[in-house]
């Protein structure tokens, strides 16, 4: 029993590595895109703001699986052919960008006006204000919900099995199907998912406590992070 479990874990570790790789690369791209999206969502001109709102709503409103299919099966129609791994990274990055744009927008909006006025009164230049006043606040309040998004992104990588990426679920599924041990194989994968997710959530809770201190204890509600940013239960 224990040897079977250890064997299965060793067998599935390469799959877990692919899942982590997918999570890290799509989150890295998605967070950068999401940050610029969040800034543009607050743009003064409605000619910039409205199109960005439209894009963000589509990225958030389409299921992650649909985005994956659009990239993998749809883009070849306009002569963009990506490998399944790259498709998965691009698709997940887009979905992550949609969700994080909203988080960054809320985080930027949560910078107290008094701090901005103080910066102005002290004669700080806009760039210095951004670096010393806005950014520390934004990072402080946005990090817990961003980790929440990364947790969901990690779970979402399991969707890549549908376009043939052998990540954790894929490895477990293939072996279980060939050897008629689906229940035990997928249970082991489930344990691995649970360990990584719990670890990330633990970091999230820790970051949230820190963020609440930064934001002066304005953490609201059970699922709202600092500044009352609600973590969406799922990208998907």
């Amino acid at each position: 029993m224990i040897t079977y479990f250890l064997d299965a874990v060793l067998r599935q570790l390469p799959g877990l590595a692919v899942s982590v790789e997918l999570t890290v690369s799509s989150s890295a791209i998605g967070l950068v895109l999401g940050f610029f999206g969040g800034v543009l969502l607050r743009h003064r001109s409605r000619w910039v703001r409205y199109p960005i709102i439209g894009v963000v709503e589509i990225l958030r409103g389409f299921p992650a699986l649909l985005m994956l299919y659009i990239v993998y099966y749809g883009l070849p129609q306009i002569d963009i052919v990506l490998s399944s791994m790259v498709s998965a990274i691009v698709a997940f990055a887009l979905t992550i960008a949609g969700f994080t744009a909203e988080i960054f927008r809320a985080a930027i909006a949560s910078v107290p006006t008094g701090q901005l006025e103080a910066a102005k009164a002290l004669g700080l230049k806009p760039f210095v204000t951004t670096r010393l006043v806005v950014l520390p606040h934004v990072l402080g309040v946005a990090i817990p919900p961003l980790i929440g998004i990364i947790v969901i992104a990690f779970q979402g990588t399991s969707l890549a099995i549908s376009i043939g990426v052998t990540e954790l679920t894929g490895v477990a599924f293939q072996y279980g199907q060939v050897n008629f041990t689906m229940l035990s194989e997928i249970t082991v994968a489930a344990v691995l998912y649970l360990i990584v997710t719990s670890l990330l959530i633990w970091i999230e809770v820790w970051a949230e406590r820190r963020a609440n201190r930064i934001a002066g204890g304005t953490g609201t509600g059970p699922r709202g992070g600092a500044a009352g940013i609600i973590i969406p239960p799922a990208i998907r």
Partner: protein
Amino acid sequence: MELQYLLRSLGHTLIIWIGSILFAAVLSIPVAAGRRAGSPILRGITRVWVAIVRGLPPLVWMILLFFGVGIGLLGQSPMFAAIVALGLINSAYFGDSIYAGLNSVPTAQWDAIKALALPTRQAYTKVIIPQAFPIIIASSTAYSISLVKNTAIASIIGANELMFYGHNTVQAGANGLQVFFLIGLVYLALTIPVGMLARWVEGRSVISTVR
């Protein structure tokens, strides 16, 4: 694209969605009760259960139930397996909403119930639920909206809902970009009215509590 098949697969998406909402709603009551339980053991068990339910990707839950457990209907109907999987996951989220809603009722109200010696049922139907309702509705609607998007995952285990239909059409040679974008619009058409409905219900219930 044949309209008849599109409508049928849309129907299946709706069945999975509504089925899992109902399943989750029923299951969320013991989850919320467990989180509020006096006994620390019961609370601990509920916490572990919620962590497990949420810690696994929906697809893993579906594979586990459909291919792994596979007893009775679970193994025969991917749609049924998807309903149970999504229902389980969302019972944790709905349970959270109920828990948060009940906690949002001011302590003075609970004290007043005790002081008046109101019977439990009356206390809940007349005092607690009217006040907790807007919060429960607001957050559980947000979860229900993301649940719509989760029904798409059921296509991977073979439930012939919207995404399954789209995938098949594209495999048969249709333009992937057009088909999937159109299906995306159908999902938006499902989620946007739900959000609006929730805001309306929330607004109404706030008015009725004020009165």
